[in-house]
Structure formats: structure tokens, C-alpha cells
């Protein structure tokens, strides 16, 4: 069983340190969520793992192999795939091209065709939108493309950054149900969310981040009832 281990990870943008030593574990058989306020460093953590940041120190490993200093393509080829904040689909390409780009590093045509079918089974709407230019899709459909594109790489661990951003509550529910489905099919998930209640409700394990550090961590059901979490993120008291 693969585990993503992050130990005393520090990361900075220029001279400003954003992560001040983060330690956590993400198991590939679990749905883990990472919650926290805006600017806590959640996205930075994902970018550090997937090789988008240059100034990173500390240790990150996957399957016992270090990930520090590896460029983004080599992280993807190891089965860790990042669905970025704001979806970042390719706006002037069709849905099909977006999905095929998700499988960029793969050479098994038959497997790609099979995964395309699986993506359509997961998001039937995308089959209808197959030849449509991505920028003309609705926000929810664009999020579906982003997730499906990530799955096309056949990940073992999918990192999702705020998939609920800017979506109507009903759509958020639908997207989260799909994530559970993906998880049941055997893909590990690390879900970064501001929508703490929704994220903790579907997760096995949760972490809470505050200003560049982990504040809490544990089984999601416990965090959901933790008075500190309720006070800070769930609007309870």
C-alpha cells in the first residue's frame, strides 16, 4: 500500500516562507481531506508535492522514494496527479482534447480508450459535451473535465484543490459523491477544501491547517465533532 509521507516540509515564494514545517501522511486507500482558512498554505502543500514549486525543503516520499526536487512530469508518472485550484482546463481545446492531454504520458491506446469510457460513465454529461470547446462549458462541467482529466492519467493518488470553488451547493454535493465513487474504485484522494463540513463528511481522515502549520489531524468523524474545528470552520460553538 502506497503512502505519501510529508515531513517537516518548508516551502517559500521568494523570501516569504509559506509552509513552516508540515508533517502528514496520506494513504492511497483512504480519502483524506485537508481543511483550513484561506492562505493557510493548503494549495502550496499540493504544489510542493507535485513539483510546481522550486524552493522546497524537508522530505516528501511516495512508496519510500523521495519526491523532493523531482520535476512535475516525473511526479505524474509515479501516479500522483494534481487537479489544480480554479480547474485550469485548456480553454481553447475541446473536452476530448482536454481528456486526452490528461493521458499525455501514457502510451497504451487501449487503456486510454477504456479510461475515456470510465470517465463518461462517471460524468455522463461529458459524453454530450465531447466535441465542445472547454471555455464554453458551465463551471460545474468544467470541474468535471478537470477531475476526469486528472483520472485519465490513471492516478493512484489524486490531489484535488478546492473542487467546490464557485459551484452551486447541489453541484458541490454531486461532485463530492463522484469523488467518493472514484475512491471506492481504488484511487486514493487528498481533498483540499474550505468547505470543511462537506469535506469531513466524506473523508476517512482529516487534517486542519493554520498559517503554514498543521493544527490538528485525525479520523474525519472525530474532527467533525471536535469543538475547536466546529468553532473555527463549521460555524458551531
Amino acid at each position, binding site marked *: 500500500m502506497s503512502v505519501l509521507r510529508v515531513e517537516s516540509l518548508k516551502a517559500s515564494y521568494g523570501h516569504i516562507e509559506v509552509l513552516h514545517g508540515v508533517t502528514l501522511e496520506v494513504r492511497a486507500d483512504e480519502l483524506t481531506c485537508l481543511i483550513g482558512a484561506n492562505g493557510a498554505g493548503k494549495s502550496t502543500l499540493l504544489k510542493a508535492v*507535485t*513539483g*510546481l514549486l522550486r524552493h522546497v525543503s524537508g522530505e516528501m516520499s511516495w512508496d519510500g522514494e523521495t519526491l523532493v526536487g523531482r*520535476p*512535475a*512530469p516525473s511526479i*505524474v*508518472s509515479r501516479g500522483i*496527479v*494534481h487537479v*489544480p485550484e480554479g480547474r*485550469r*482546463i*485548456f*480553454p*481553447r*481545446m475541446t473536452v476530448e*482534447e482536454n481528456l*486526452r*492531454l*490528461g493521458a*499525455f*504520458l501514457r502510451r497504451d491506446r487501449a487503456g486510454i480508450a477504456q479510461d475515456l469510457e470510465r470517465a463518461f460513465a462517471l460524468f455522463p454529461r461529458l459524453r454530450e459535451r465531447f466535441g465542445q470547446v472547454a471555455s464554453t462549458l458551465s463551471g460545474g462541467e468544467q470541474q468535471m473535465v478537470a477531475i476526469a*482529466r486528472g483520472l485519465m*492519467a490513471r492516478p493512484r493518488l489524486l490531489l484535488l484543490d478546492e473542487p467546490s470553488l464557485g459551484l452551486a451547493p447541489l453541484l458541490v454535493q454531486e461532485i463530492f459523491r463522484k469523488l467518493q465513487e472514484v475512491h471506492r474504485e481504488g484511487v486514493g484522494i487528498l481533498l483540499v477544501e474550505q468547505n470543511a463540513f462537506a469535506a469531513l463528511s466524506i473523508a476517512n481522515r482529516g487534517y486542519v491547517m493554520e498559517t503554514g502549520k498543521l493544527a490538528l489531524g485525525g479520523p474525519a468523524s472525530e474532527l467533525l465533532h471536535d469543538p475547536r474545528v466546529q468553532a473555527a470552520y463549521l460555524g458551531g460553538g
Partner: protein
Amino acid sequence: MLAQILLLGVTMGAAYALIAVGYTMVYGIIELINFAHGEIYMYGAFMCLAFTIASTPFQAAGAALFAGALAWVVAFDRMLERSGSKPLAQGCGLAAALTLGLAVYGGCLARIPFPVSFLLAVGLAAMLGVAIEIVAYRPLRDSPRLTALITAIGVSLVLQNLAQVIWSAENHTFRKYDAHPALFLRQNMPEGTSFWQTLVEGHYLQAGPLSMSLLQAFILLTAFALMLGLHLLVTRTKLGMAMRACAQDQVAARLMGIDVNRVISITFAIGSALGAVAGILVGLYRDEIKPTMGYQAGVFAFSAAVLGGIGNIPGAMVGGLVLGVAQSLAIYWELSEWSTGIAYLVMISVIILRPAGLMGAQLPRKS
């Protein structure tokens, strides 16, 4: 008569289009106007000339040093990316520089048949484009765009002056080159006919009232074949898809596993190779090769790229043709001294009426 002149316009337009494609591809992917592109066009012509016509030892050494430096930069960068080991990359760069430097030195002194020189020159120009990006533009990728733009102008001036040092500022020509007739697939060529005469002066192809030289036909054919090839590459292949992905969102492209630096290098290589092809063909056609030839051609081709919609490859092709035809019409109306002005007039009118260019996306205005 009009048809004949339009044919001339289409020929020049096809050459402009070949150059314009290089501007537009680079702009599309890194949003930079590569002002050094005209110099790549010029170097293509000079390198081809240097191989076909006997060079002086000084010229040969200059060309060899220049080519060696390019080889060092490109080999070092690729090896460093691949292995991550600096000493290995340095060794590789040194080996590549020595090999290519010696080959170019020998080639310049030995005189190589034109078709081979042509391909070698195009390859070297592609390398020049890649090396310029690595040395001058890549370190500035996150700086303000104006910085990179001014750097591009600087690179252009340095290259132009370097060419002047190596080959002097005078006009050079392929006329001195006597090729073996067999190279050009003509059996019945009169004794002593030179290469240039064969291509340009002799042997007109006739089609009804139209006639064109072998060279003109060759320019048209090559330009259209290359542009068709480029179009297929960009729209149909995986590499083309990666290029478009990098043009639209580089971060997302990296998350797909695309090696963005490599794709940018390939883009520069392709654009530069096409520019060099145009440089050699126009150098033959106009019968003049000089260090400043890249400036004017570059300005026209850049106008063509803007005319068609900068960043848009089919647009650059259309823009080049429109500009070439506009210039030939100027000649038809006996305004040949105005032909440059007319080219600009066309460009300015199009930009006023359609700011995104002929084929550019019509984006809503920013308020």
C-alpha cells in the same frame, strides 16, 4: 500582366508567411515578440552560402566558432535536463561543440552541394533559435514582458553585428556557385550553365499566360508544403497538442506531465527552421545576402503575423500572402517605391478595423 504580378506577390507572400509563422508560434507560446527571428532568417542564408561557396579561412573559423557555441548551449541544456549532472552536461556540451565546430569548419572550406548545404543551414538555424531561447529568454520568463522584449532587440543587434564581423557588410550572392548540373535533375543543360542561371534565369515554366522561374516554383511549393506540414503537426499530433497546451496554460501543461521547456525549445526550433528556409530561398531569389537582410524581412513578416492575428498560425500564413499580394499590386499600379508603405497601410487598416487581426479571436474589450 496583372496575373503575372499577382503570382510574384503570392511568391513573396509565401516567403513572408514562412517567416511570420516563426513570430506567431513563439508569441503564442511565451508571449514574446522574438525580434531576433529576422536574424535567424539571415543566418540561414549565410550558413547555406558559407557551405556552398568557398569561404575564406577567417569566415570558416567564424562560422565554426559560432556553430560550436550553439552546439555547446543546446547539448548542455538537454543533458542537464535529462541527467541532472553538471559535469556530464559540460562534457557533453564540449564534445558537441568540438564535433560541430570542426564539421562546420571543414564544410565551409570544402564546398558542399547546395541541397546538403541547405539542410545543414536549416539545422544550424534551428539550433540558433533554441540557443537564443535558452540563453536570453528562459532566465527572463518570469520577468516583466518589456524586459524580454528589450532583450530580444539586443540579441538581434548582437547577431547582426556578429554576422558583419564574420562575413562583412557587403552583398553576397549565390551567382559564383557552379553546381554540377546533375544535382538539379536536368539532363539537357548547356555546358557551363551555372546553378543560379538554371534556377533563376533559365528554364521558365509556362502555364497559359503565366510563366515562372524554377526558383519561384520551388519557393511556392516548399512554402506551401511546409505550412501544410506545420498545420498537420500542430492540429493532429501529440507534440502539436502539447504545444497548444503550453500556449494555453503552462502550469496545467506541467501537471499533465508535459516537459514545458522541451516543448518551448521545439517550438523555437521549428519556427527558426522555417525562417531559415525562407532566408535561403529569398536570398537566392533577390540575389543578395547581407547582414541587414533580416531586419526588413523581419519587419514585414512581423506585420504579416500581426495582420493575421498574432499567436494564430493559419493567420500568419494568410497575413503573409495578403502582404505579398498588396506589395505586388503596388508594383502593378506603378507605385513600387511605395510598396513598403502600402504594406504598412494594409496592416494598419486591418488592425484598426479588426484589432485581433484577420483570423484572431475577437475578444471582448477590456473595460
